[in-house]
């Protein structure tokens, strides 16, 4: 049913069930919000979006109030504007005055709103909360002092990720956001995905930073400092640098990293190809030898931890392959070290990832060789931009360069890892060759491309009828996993990425990533795949060389030693 509502003396169309905010947004009227999160139930917690109902004279929250026929709304009356300003002043009353030192300085919604509402003094002084900084997690730092209790992290953790490791605890002015029994995040079921950071309006949630360690390594002449970057990085940085979303800056990035002082630049898309070699071999082996099916990808460290906590029975279904980050880390400290005549401990290995969970993954006990970590430090996309600024790199005036060889050359299949469905598509391409001895005629598998929550397809590979499913967003994965647990058996291979859209929407990306930006990044990856000729991992010459010179063949003893691992049930409060 359509009807009109009157906003600021103008008539606007509205539909039954729509909120006032939706009508306003559609018509270009900007009302500030803080707790509002698209696609989730409104909570009306922050009151920023109040508008005046001119008929009743009441202030109502436009995010949660349904539009009613004949309504008469004022969005910027004096009363509304003053109320909003008071709300900001109240939010600031117990907020630390340390914007200058805050990681979110100049990228903070509270700061922006204060500026927009012309808050020029601290009118209200409240008691600050005395909750301690939570440094317990390997990935995420929580600073309750900066929390404004908007609850967006709680919502995203439950609705999008299906984890729900945090909630609002206590009541009234004693409310805080915390884990069960308010213990460290590391003891909770947190999977380190960082989606809470992506929605936090202030600096209350940030990634754990390792700049100092990396700088120490760069300044240490006896260390060989190498870096790898994930497939999605080169198409996800453009916004942070002020370029058009989705622009591929691969060559520029190589040059910039060299300028910073990294000795060798490698590409995790190369090790994505390596992952495909191992993973497709594992899939074929499981199918032919009657192994545990469906096999589920294990590239996503958020998903791996989720499985350890919530679906320990499905651990045998997880591929034993390490993620591309860890595979490359292991190969760098073995094959590359050998080649360069270096001891593993002389190498400092940095990974640039769109992900906060990769920080957790890098320090897992399983990801070491003789007590030495495969990867020493992880930077998120956000941190990389800051790091490049720190070294004064002007990304607009720099000549593109190539990655180092070996371990730097990739197929486009490896590059596809950055988007949901990419691992599946790359694996199918190689599995098809392994099973039939022939290449696919059409490499694209459109059924598993795109941003949909779940994509399923039935594929014919030779005589084999293969059922595949791709899910992104842990809450969506949960639905599929429950189907599997309840006996669904028509699927052989599942790709799970914890974050919406896959790594392009990872928790280490640009804060405020929109759906349009996600689409642009995804399109950029597909475009690379379309334009380049080397579209399959098994034809990557550097991969062939690595197997010939070092690993032998996929699933060899050496591969198992370096590139595979096991996971086990993790006891946390779920």
């Amino acid at each position, binding site marked *: 049913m359509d009807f009109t509502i009157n906003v600021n003396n103008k008539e606007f169309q509205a539909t039954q069930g729509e909120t006032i905010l939706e009508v306003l947004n559609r018509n270009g009227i900007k009302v500030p919000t803080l707790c509002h999160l698209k696609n989730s139930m409104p909570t009306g917690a922050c009151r920023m979006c109040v508008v005046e109902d001119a008929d009743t004279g009441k202030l109502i929250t436009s995010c949660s109030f349904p539009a009613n026929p004949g309504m008469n709304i004022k969005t910027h009356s004096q009363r509304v504007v003053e109320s909003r300003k008071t709300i900001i002043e109240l939010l600031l009353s117990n907020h630390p005055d340390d914007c200058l030192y805050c990681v979110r300085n100049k990228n903070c919604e509270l700061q922006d709103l204060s500026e927009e509402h012309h808050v020029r003094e601290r009118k209200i002084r409240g008691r600050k909360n005395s909750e301690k900084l939570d440094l317990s997690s390997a990935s995420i730092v929580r600073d309750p002092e900066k929390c404004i209790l908007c609850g967006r992290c709680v919502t995203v953790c*439950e609705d999008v990720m299906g*984890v*729900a*490791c*945090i*909630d*609002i*605890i*206590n*009541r009234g002015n004693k409310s805080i956001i915390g*884990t*069960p*029994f*308010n213990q460290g995040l590391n003891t*909770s*079921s947190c999977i380190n995905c960082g989606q809470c950071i992506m929605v936090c309006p202030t600096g209350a949630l940030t990634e754990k930073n390792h700049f100092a360690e990396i700088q120490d390594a760069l300044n240490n002449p006896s260390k060989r400092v190498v870096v790898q970057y994930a497939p999605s990085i080169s198409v996800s940085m453009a916004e942070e640098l002020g370029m058009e979303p989705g622009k591929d800056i691969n060559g520029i990035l190589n040059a910039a990293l060299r300028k910073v002082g990294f000795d060798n630049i490698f590409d995790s898309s190369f090790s994505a190809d390596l992952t495909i070699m191992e993973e497709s071999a594992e899939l074929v082996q499981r199918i032919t030898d009657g192994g545990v099916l469906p096999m589920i990808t294990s590239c996503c460290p958020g998903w791996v931890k989720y499985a350890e906590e919530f679906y320990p029975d499905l651990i045998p279904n997880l591929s034993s392959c390490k993620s591309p980050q860890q595979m490359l880390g292991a190969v760098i400290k073995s094959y590359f070290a050998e080649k360069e005549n270096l001891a593993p401990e002389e190498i400092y290995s940095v990974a640039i990832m769109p992900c906060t969970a990769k920080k957790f993954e890098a320090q897992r006990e399983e990801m070491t060789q003789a007590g030495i970590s495969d990867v020493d430090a992880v930077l998120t996309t956000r941190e990389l931009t800051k790091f490049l600024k720190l070294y004064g790199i002007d990304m607009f005036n720099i000549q593109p360069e190539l990655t180092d060889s070996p371990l730097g050359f990739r197929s486009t299949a490896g590059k596809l890892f950055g988007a949901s469905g990419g691992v599946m598509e790359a694996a199918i391409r190689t599995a098809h060759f392994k099973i039939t001895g022939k290449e696919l005629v059409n490499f694209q598998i459109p059924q598993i491309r795109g941003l949909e929550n779940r994509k399923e397809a039935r594929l014919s590979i030779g005589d084999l009828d293969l059922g595949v499913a791709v899910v992104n967003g842990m809450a969506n994965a949960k639905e599929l996993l429950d189907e599997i647990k309840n006996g669904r058996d028509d699927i052989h291979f599942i790709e799970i990425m914890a974050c919406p859209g896959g790594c392009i929407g990872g928790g280490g990306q640009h804060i405020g990533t929109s759906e349009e930006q996600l689409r642009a990044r995804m399109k950029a990856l597909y475009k690379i795949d379309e334009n380049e000729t080397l579209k399959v991992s098994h034809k990557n010459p550097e991969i062939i060389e690595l197997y010939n010179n070092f690993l032998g063949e996929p699933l060899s003893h050496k591969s198992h030693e370096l590139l595979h691992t096991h996971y086990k049930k993790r006891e946390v*409060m*779920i």
Partner: protein
Amino acid sequence: MGELKNIFNRYPEAGRDNLIPILQDIQSAEGHLSKEAIVEVGSYLNIPSSKIFGVATFYNQFRFQPVGKYHIQVCRGTACHVLGSATVLQELEKQLKVKAGDTTRDGLFSIEVVACIGACGLAPVIAINGEFHAKVTAASLTEIIESYKNKEEE
């Protein structure tokens, strides 16, 4: 754990709306809500333990540590407030070195804040294991605590 089973049996086909009654039953059976109990309730009702802790901490009635041998209820009702119960609570927390809701490490004392225990004529009033102490002051509080400690030593 057997006790929890009995409680759950009282709520067959329970859903979210049974959460608070179940928590109340557990508290009256075990004196407090332990981590284990919260996890068990979570798996029985299919609610994350963070949500249960969130709900439980919203209400004053739930506690998360076993009560002490001597459970001290400090009345913070209107009459007691007017006559200085805030100071009484502060003083008590100082003397026992624990906050309201907590239990001393030796397990002897625990503090609970209650809204009104219906003895306004005795304000400010505290109740220790149901025994009322009237018109409490900082000095009398020390004496009261000492008397319970002495009782222990005997």
